[in-house]
C-alpha cells in the first residue's frame, strides 16, 4: 500500500518556492524551469502559492540565523510527506557567506533536505534532473536502496 501511495505521489508534485535572502539568480533559474520551454507540467509538476499545498519545497538563497528559524516553521506547516530540495550553492553549504557574521550553519541543519542541487546558479536542466532523480527514488525504492 505504501508503494502505491508513493507512486501516486510521484506522479503529481506541487512545487513551492521558499526563498531566503537570495541574490535571485537561483530564483530566476527556478522560474525558467517552470516556463513552457521545459514544460514541467507534463511530469505533473505545477507551482503553487501556499505552503499547505506543497509537495516539493525548493529552497533558494542564503538562510541566515534569523530566517532559518522561520524556514523551520514553514517546513512544519507543510503537510507531510514533503520533499525538500536545496537549489544553489548558498542553500546547500552557505558558499561565500560561510564567514558572515549572520550565518552559522547550513539550512540542512534546520530542516531535512532530500536533494542538493549545487551551482551558482544551477541550470534549469540540473533542477529538473534533481526532481526526476527524486521521483525515480520514489517509484523504485528498491533500486535506490533504503529510504
Amino acid at each position: 500500500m505504501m508503494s502505491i501511495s508513493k507512486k501516486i505521489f510521484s506522479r503529481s508534485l506541487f512545487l513551492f518556492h521558499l526563498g531566503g535572502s537570495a541574490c535571485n539568480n537561483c530564483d530566476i533559474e527556478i522560474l525558467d524551469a517552470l516556463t513552457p520551454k521545459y514544460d514541467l507540467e507534463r511530469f505533473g509538476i505545477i507551482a503553487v502559492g501556499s505552503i499547505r499545498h506543497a509537495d516539493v519545497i525548493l529552497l533558494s538563497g542564503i538562510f541566515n540565523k534569523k530566517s532559518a528559524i522561520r524556514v523551520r516553521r514553514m517546513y512544519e506547516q507543510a503537510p507531510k510527506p514533503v520533499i525538500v530540495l536545496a537549489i544553489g550553492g548558498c542553500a546547500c553549504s552557505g558558499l561565500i557567506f560561510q564567514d558572515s557574521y549572520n550565518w552559522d550553519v547550513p539550512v540542512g541543519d534546520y530542516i531535512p533536505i532530500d536533494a542538493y542541487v549545487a551551482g551558482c546558479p544551477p541550470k534549469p536542466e540540473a533542477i529538473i534532473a534533481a526532481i526526476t532523480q527524486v521521483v525515480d527514488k520514489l517509484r523504485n525504492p528498491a533500486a535506490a536502496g533504503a529510504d
Partner: protein
Amino acid sequence: MGKGEGVIAIAQFLFFPGLVFTAAAGLLTSWFDRKLTARVQMRKGPPLLQPFYDVAKLFVKETCVPEGTLSWFFLSAPLIGVAGVTLASTILCQAMWAPQDIFAGDLIVVMYLLALPSLSMILGAFASQNPLASLGGSREMKLIMAYELPFILVACVPIIAARSIQLADILAAPPVAHQFSGLLALLVALIAMQARLTRVPFDIPEAECELGSGVLIEYSGPPLAMYKLTQAMMLFTGPVFLLVLYAGGIPFSEGWLAAGLGLLKFLSIVTLVVLIRNTAPRLRIDQAMRLLWGPVTLAAIMSLVLVYWGL
C-alpha cells in the same frame, strides 16, 4: 416513492449520473482545459489521467487544521460544494437522458444548487482563520453578487421562449441559441459562467500570486482534494447547464449523430472558457463588479426584451 425507487435514486446520486460520473467527467474536462492551455502555450501538457493523480495524491497527504477554528466546520465546508454540484449535475443529466423523472421547478433547484460550491468556498475561507483567506472570501462574496444578477436574467430567456420553467420542456423546445436573443443570452451566460468558475479574468478570490491561493490557503490533504474535485465538476456541470438552457443539451435519445454534435458543442463551450482564461488578464474585484453589473447586465436585459418580442 417506494423503497426500491429510493435505492435507485441514491444509486443515481452516487454513481450515474451523480458523483462518480460527474467526477470522472469533470476531471476529464479539467484535463482538456490543461491540455488546451498547454497547446496555446506551445508545450506538451499533462497526461490524460493527471487530474485524477492530483486528486488521489491529495489523499496521501496529511490534513492540517488551523488553530482556533471549529475543526468540524473547517473540514466539512468542502463537502457542501461537492454535494451541491453533484445534485445539480444529477438533475441536469436526468433531464437530458431520462426526462420521465422530471419534477416541477427543477430549473430553479439547479440554479440554487449551483450557488453551493461558491458558498462552500466562502465558508472554508472564513473557517481558515487567515487574513489572506478572509480577503479572498470577501472578494468571492462580491463576485457572487456580481455574476448572479446577469445570470438569473438570461436564464429567463429560454424560459420565456419555451413558455415553461421545466428543464424537459426547455430541452424539447427548439434551442434558443438559434435566435438572436438566445445567442446574446448565451454570450452573457458564458461571461457569468466564467465568473462562477472563478476562471481568469475573474479568478481574484483564488489569485495565486496576489493572495497566496486566497480562499484555499490553509487547506491541505483530503479537504483540498474535495475542493479541487468540486472545481473540476463545476467545469463539467457549468457548460452542460449552458447547453441545456440554450443549445438543447447532449441528447442521447436521438441517435449518435445528435449526441456527437452535443458533445462537440460542449467541448466548444469549454474551449471558449479555456481560451478566455489564457488570453485575458485578471480583473480587480471592483473592475469585475463594474463589468458584470454594467455592460453584461445591460446585454442581459436587451436579450430579455428581444426574446419577449419573439426575436
